[in-house]
């Protein structure tokens, strides 16, 4: 009976992947058109934040997987703590992301045609940052959605409506959270590493 829910979430993930695919295609095509501008754009991003955020999301993926493991081994209390850790990590990710955006905006790096390129940058750099804001922004929206679901599951575990005999909701939310992580696994090199 639970099979259909797993299937549905996988289909949602496939659908979401194609949503991001459109932006990925734009990124790679524009990178093909303006390689130098994209390299200099990557150099302008704040690398320690990107790296730290990657570490945070990978860890949060582990903690939510761990909470399923705890549930299966009949330790709902430990599962609860593991979920709480996931929430904290997710919030930390968002906080860092907001901090990074605020630095960028302070430096005059804004999306769209109002982007002030400064003396050095060439054609295409505004596209890089428009895509940067769109892709990290869309991803952050998914983090918010995923985090809300994690909180919902957390509340239900605490109330005891998700328990070791019935925890399909936890599995589904975890699946979605891992997907959000996977998207970031690709965004990270595209915006912070490929100089």
């Amino acid at each position, binding site marked *: 009976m639970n099979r259909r829910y797993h299937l549905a979430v*996988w289909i949602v993930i496939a659908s979401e992947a194609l949503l991001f*695919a459109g932006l990925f*295609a734009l990124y790679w095509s524009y990178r*093909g*058109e303006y390689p130098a501008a994209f390299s200099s754009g990557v150099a302008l991003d704040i690398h320690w934040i990107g*790296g730290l955020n990657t570490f945070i999301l990978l860890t949060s993926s582990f903690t939510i997987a761990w909470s399923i493991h705890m549930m299966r081994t009949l330790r709902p209390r430990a599962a609860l703590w593991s979920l709480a850790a996931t929430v904290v990590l997710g919030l930390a990710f968002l906080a860092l992301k907001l901090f990074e955006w605020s630095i960028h905006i302070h430096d005059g790096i804004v999306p769209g045609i109002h982007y002030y390129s400064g003396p050095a940058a060439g054609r295409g750099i505004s596209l890089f940052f428009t895509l940067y804001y769109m892709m990290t922004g869309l991803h952050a929206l998914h983090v918010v959605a995923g985090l809300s679901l994690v909180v919902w599951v957390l509340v239900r575990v605490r109330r005891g409506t998700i328990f070791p005999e019935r925890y399909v909701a936890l599995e589904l939310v975890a699946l979605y959270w891992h997907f959000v992580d*996977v998207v970031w*696994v690709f965004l990270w090199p595209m915006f912070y590493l490929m*100089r």
Partner: protein
Amino acid sequence: MTARSLVFTYILLVVLAAASWLLADVGGGTAVALLIAALKTLAIALVFMELWIGHASDRVIAVVALFFVVLLCAGALADVVTR
């Protein structure tokens, strides 16, 4: 999934991420970064998302979705670079 495989996967992910970070500093290039990202995705999908032990149709969905993501990027990029 066993506790051991979860922990092992997590350590692998962190190591891969660190490798990606370090290689970027020495100019590792686009291909290396993408390859490492693909490896990380594979680890997350197989272990954390339980494709390894999961239903065959889930695996099919994942592969098909990935194929179409790559297809869209490749089709558009191929146009730009061969114009």
